[in-house]
């Protein structure tokens, strides 16, 4: 069982092999959680999306025609749940969310800009994650999805195009604008190379 590939595990799981399914969960659980967390920026919601993704996977695995599409399929499910959560949050927290968000952004910007100790002392490891998640959340959904899939899930552009059912050029275009947008955000927050290299 240990030596089986993803495709083989999927085939076994489709036939009702719980061990194979558990193995798939073990391989993908952290990955999907990580993807959801980067997308949503909140632990609780990311956990909920991860749970829902695997429940959906468990219920509908029989419908997956070819095991080689498993990867794209899982990401599709997770992406759909992430987008659903974003829509829910927008409906639920329209006014408070906007005001809170503005305040947090301003705090980050002020902290980095007005330091007397020097920027290298400001950004520590816990804060790096926080800043990056905040920056990702500021991207439009379509750019954020592509950036996360490429930078953190290390998918090929062809795979991303398959998952999102887009052309490769569109995916690359979104990636390009996503990176440009992130650069503008980091510049606005006055975050320079030195802030990060101190930690290396």
């Amino acid at each position, binding site marked *: 069982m240990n030596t089986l590939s993803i495709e083989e595990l999927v085939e076994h799981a489709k036939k009702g092999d719980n061990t194979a399914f558990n193995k798939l969960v073990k391989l993908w659980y952290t990955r999907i959680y990580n993807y959801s967390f980067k997308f949503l920026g909140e632990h609780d919601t990311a956990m909920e999306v*991860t749970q829902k993704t695997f429940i959906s996977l468990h219920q509908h695995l029989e419908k997956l025609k070819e095991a080689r599409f498993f990867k794209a399929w899982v990401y599709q499910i997770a992406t759909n749940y992430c987008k659903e959560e974003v829509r829910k949050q927008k409906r639920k927290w329209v006014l408070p969310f906007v005001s809170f968000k503005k305040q947090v952004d301003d705090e980050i910007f002020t902290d980095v800009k007005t330091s007397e100790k020097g920027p290298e002392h400001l950004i520590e490891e816990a804060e790096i994650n926080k800043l990056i998640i905040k920056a990702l959340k500021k991207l439009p959904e379509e750019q954020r999805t592509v950036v996360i899939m490429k930078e953190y899930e290390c998918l090929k552009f062809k795979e991303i195009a398959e998952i999102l059912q887009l052309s490769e050029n569109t995916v690359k275009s979104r990636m*390009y604008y996503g*990176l440009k947008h992130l650069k503008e955000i980091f510049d606005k927050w006055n975050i320079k190379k030195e802030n990060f290299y101190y930690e290396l």
Partner: protein
Amino acid sequence: MNSNIDKSTIIDYLYGEMNEDEKLLFEQQLEKDPALKAEVDAMIETRSFLNKASVQEPTEPLILNGLNNFNSQSKDTLWRKWASVAAALLVILVAAAWWNLEIEMGDGELRISFNKNYNKVQQAEIKKQKDALEEEIAKQKDLMNQALKERVAQLEDSLYLGYTNIKSEFQELVSQQNVQVQNQQRVYLTPEDVEKLMWKINEENFKNTTLLLSKTSESQQKYTEELMREFAEFVDEKRQNDLQLVSYALNKLKTDTQAQQEETNIILAKLINEWNKESETKNFNKK
């Protein structure tokens, strides 16, 4: 961005999705185009920022509620669900019967209620009280109707009686007035009576006129006498006043004349004195 280089090419270079020839060609372009190089460097820097994010670990295990028996379980799920519902219902019914609860079915409803016997007794009691109350209400209603009818009859009688009395009184009054009118017409319409009355009135008028004239002449005489007396008094008073005034004027004239005479004497004395002094002065000078 250099217009000759499209976004896809930059992205391919950044993520190493170029073959060696494409990569070499792109790097040559980078050397020639500083703006393009700056753009690519900025993107590389942004990527390096993004890569500083660490992997997040989930803190909770995956919970697949009741889904552990993959495939085989899903077919039985529906039956199990219904069986559990039926079992729960059965337990409730048995428990209700055990505790002697009232169970009723009908009209698409299942009702379980407490105090079965007590409810029946209570309902019978309520029905009995309701009937008694309704009977009492009907009795009171009849009594009230009867009383009302009697009262209405009494009022009708009294009204009729009053109307009859008023009518008879009115008729009597009308007949009396007719008799009086007939009598009056008989008295005033006789010519002799009218003539007598006219004589009587004339005599009365004559007497009254005579009396009035005599009274009037007396009063006029008195008034004239009074007037004459008052006039005489007035004239006398006026004469006295005039005499006093004349006397006063004479006295005053006398006093004034005396005063003027004294003044004249003084002036004459002064003049004589002056004339004497002058003549003495003239004489002295001559001398």
